């Protein structure tokens, strides 16, 4: 077994994901700077800018977790290595998304309730007075492009690595066109004299952030409290884990099977049964062939304890 937490066969895929996440951070920074230059008083732009800034959290957390998984050795202080760092990063990203989403929604609704009229004036470029809204629209259009490509590239890597943090980031990036469209509609609406369009678009964007955050929070807390492994894209139980459970039940009839997830790995406990006499690698029990067998890191057997039922 590897001395670090990352299975050997994932190293190349992980290296590709790390390179992609550095590019992700670079392009996100260009978006943050572009949007920041033309923020103005628009609630939509401020919300979209904060959303873009928040977009840095998942890739940064992924890189930190990946570094620890790749280079953090098991030690006396950390005998199980750092395979759960990814889960912790997922939780941190989820908390950030949820908290900021709620705050942005509150701000947008307050602005809507107070009927705040956003002022977007003009600036001079090459001797011409240009309405700042046009630059905001250009920045919003620019902010749509990089996430679309990055999200598309992240998805297969996230599936291969079974990485929820990367998967959440991929889905957020792919769905970014929705918030971008809301942002564009907000600025154009503001330009058309619909004062409410700005706050309304901000509320829609913040609802999307909040929704992403709550979904990620539900999935990440399930892992932290040793819940059964969850699917990558939802809070439903993972199909891998359900098949594994069936496989172990078939192998050990009458046993109670408990599965939990530590990062991308699954650990199984087979209760009320003795370990088989043959020495078997945990991967032997994986039901779907070898390609994802690395997910099963451990199978423990807990024999029946006499008098256990009496207490």
């Amino acid at each position, binding site marked *: 077994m590897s001395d670090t937490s990352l299975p050997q066969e994932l190293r190349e895929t992980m290296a590709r994901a790390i390179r992609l996440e550095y590019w992700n951070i670079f392009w996100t920074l260009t978006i943050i700077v572009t949007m920041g230059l033309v923020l103005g008083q628009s609630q939509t732009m401020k919300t979209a800018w904060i959303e873009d800034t928040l977009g840095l959290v998942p890739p940064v957390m992924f890189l930190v977790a990946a570094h620890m998984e790749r280079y953090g050795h098991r030690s006396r202080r950390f005998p199980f290595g750092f395979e759960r760092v990814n889960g912790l990063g997922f939780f941190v990203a989820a908390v950030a998304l949820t908290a900021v989403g709620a705050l942005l929604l509150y701000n947008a609704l307050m602005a809507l309730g107070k009927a*705040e*009229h956003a*002022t977007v004036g003009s600036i*001079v470029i090459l001797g011409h007075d240009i309405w700042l*809204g046009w630059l905001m629209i250009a920045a919003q259009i620019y902010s749509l492009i990089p996430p679309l490509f990055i999200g598309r590239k992240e998805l297969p890597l996230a599936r291969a690595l079974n990485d929820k943090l990367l998967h959440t980031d991929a889905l957020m990036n792919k769905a970014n066109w929705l918030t971008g469209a809301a942002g564009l509609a907000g600025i154009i609406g503001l330009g058309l004299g*619909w004062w409410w369009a700005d706050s309304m678009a901000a509320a829609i964007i913040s609802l999307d952030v909040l929704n992403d955050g709550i979904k990620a929070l539900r999935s990440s807390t399930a892992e932290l409290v040793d819940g059964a492994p969850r699917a990558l894209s939802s809070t439903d139980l993972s199909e891998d884990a359900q098949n594994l459970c069936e496989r172990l039940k078939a192998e050990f009839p009458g046993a109670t099977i408990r599965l939990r997830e530590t990062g991308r790995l699954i650990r199984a406990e087979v209760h009320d049964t003795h370990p088989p006499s043959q020495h078997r690698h945990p991967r032997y029990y994986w039901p779907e062939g070898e390609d994802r067998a690395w997910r099963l890191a451990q199978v423990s057997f807990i024999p029946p304890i006499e008098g256990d039922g009496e207490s």
Partner: protein
Amino acid sequence: MKFGIFSAFLLLGACDALPRDPAGTSVRVAQMQSFTVALADPTVHGAPEVAKLVHEIERRTGAHARWLPGSGEALFRQLDDGTMDLVIGRFAADSPWATAVAFGPTLSTSGATDTPLKLRAAMRNGENRWIMTVERASRAISQEAREE
């Protein structure tokens, strides 16, 4: 090529169409051929930029200025409820009204260097077309506004 030229014309047309004012200040000024203006502080009346700015707005809108009396907070409230179109005065850089009204570019600066007072126009928040008109007029008559 033809499509490109057509798109460029469409875009230029759209450039002029936006922004519009939520409360229709620019349309009203054009229809009534007048706009209301007041001085936040009577002492600024002597500043040459005040008359120049008002004349420039008159020239650009084809409307004439209707001067109204008033001072201080009451004028800002009138701006906010739409009964006043323009308030000109010397305002501190960190004016508490900065979020309640929209300030135009600085026409001139006076006072101490650590607490400068900026001569500028204030408009109703969100009336973006009207605000742009005043901003353009401010830049047309003041070097300081152009450099801001």
